[in-house]
């Protein structure tokens, strides 16, 4: 048990360190999020009333796309330099190191997206009542997205052009998350109870934490065999 928790913490620390050394790469989903969100007023309308109506959905779609973009590289470098094989031959339960990697991924993508989202919210004139629910729903929701995306990333890691396929596999599975994420923000703006959708997001997150690492471990074993 001690060795297993070390596997979790070890991979968490290792991936955070790797991310710190590749700061530029890590920042790009965040820059993407901000950039694409500024396209919306330019493309649709700078009118703040219309923007406010669209803001919850836009911010959620952009956060989803930014997470999707960063998911592709989750296992790619480990697969290329062979450290994935090292992980696979270790006698530990594979699910815990995988969970450590995903937590590191969320800390460098989902969490910054969450922290920067009030800024985008202000730019898209999101009503103030929606700011806190948006951050809460993004924090839980991007963690779900990281976990679900990791299943797709593990399945496609050995493919040369895995990126497009990854989005085909993963976007249908993302849909419940975005529905409840934007529903939480929307109901807060409408003055309804937003803790309900948030609780559903939390339930989805706990289900994903329990189930996704198993599917990821299976997929990694399978893909590295050939």
């Amino acid at each position: 048990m001690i060795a297993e928790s070390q596997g979790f913490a070890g991979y968490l620390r290792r991936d955070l360190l790797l991310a710190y050394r590749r700061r530029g790469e890590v920042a790009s989903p965040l820059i993407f999020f901000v950039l694409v969100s500024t396209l919306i007023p330019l493309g649709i309308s700078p009118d703040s009333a219309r923007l406010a109506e669209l803001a919850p959905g836009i911010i959620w779609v952009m956060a989803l796309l930014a997470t999707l973009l960063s998911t592709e590289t989750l296992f790619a470098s480990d697969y290329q330099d062979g450290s994935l094989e090292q992980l696979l031959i270790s006698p530990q339960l594979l699910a815990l190191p995988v969970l450590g990697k995903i937590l590191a991924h969320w800390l460098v993508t989902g969490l910054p997206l969450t922290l920067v989202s009030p800024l985008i919210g202000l730019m898209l004139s999101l009503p103030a009542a929606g700011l806190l629910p948006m951050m809460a729903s993004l924090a839980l929701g991007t963690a779900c997205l990281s976990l679900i995306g990791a299943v797709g990333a593990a399945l496609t890691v050995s493919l040369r052009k895995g990126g497009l396929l990854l989005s085909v596999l993963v976007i249908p599975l993302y849909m419940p998350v975005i529905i409840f994420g934007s529903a939480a923000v929307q109901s807060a703006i409408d003055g309804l109870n937003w803790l309900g959708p948030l609780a559903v997001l939390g339930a989805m997150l706990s289900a994903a934490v329990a189930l996704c690492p198993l599917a990821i471990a299976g997929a990694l074993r399978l893909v590295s065999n050939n």
Partner: protein
Amino acid sequence: MAAGRNWNWFHRMGSPRWFYETTGRWLPWLWVLTLGLMLTGLIWGLAYAPQDTKQGNSFRIIYLHVPASFLALAGYYLMAIAGAIGLIWKMKLSYMVMKSAAPIGAALTFIALFTGAVWGKPTWGTYWVWDARITSMLILLFLYLGVLALQYAFHSQETGNKASAILALVGTVNIPIIYKSVDWWYTLHQPATIKFTSAPSMHMDMFQPLLVMIIAMYSFYGLALILYTRAEILRRERKSSWVRELALRTQPAQVDQ
């Protein structure tokens, strides 16, 4: 060894050759059954069933729409269960069934969506509504396409099999979640303008042909699945001796010039 003997049928079922030969004997009967039921159901439903008082003749598309939707959903579970059997018991045949179920299911989902859109235009005045059922059928189509795409993405058949089986299983967990979430999402935002449940319970004269069509569609699904799987067996086992013998036997005699 009693336990071992009890499982013999299961292991024999895993043999592609046994499947090929057994279903070969069923095929003529299945063709007759499918065509018979399909023709009966279609003629009965399209020509003899009474007109709907509100929708007139346009309601008759139900005889294709409902059976196709049934099988599109059931087919996903069949595909995922076949994938799970393949992963657990490492049975070659069940991967072939899984692979065959994907295009059939995708086609049926498309038919369900398409007939729904065509039916929607005269009844609700629009081809598309973001209703819970319609949206989740669309997502079902995407899930099928993902399984299909993953199947063909790998060079190794073995990897493609297992990868798409894992994806199909992940999708199984998601289908109820997707369905419920889309359902709640719709009710969260706008009042239900169209109710699927408010239709008056069907008249017996309309319901009987529908029942025949549903059974016909099940039979058609079985037939299509067997035909696809047989083709897949021949493709994958083409190097084995029994397929070679079969090919030699069925090859038309060469005419000397």
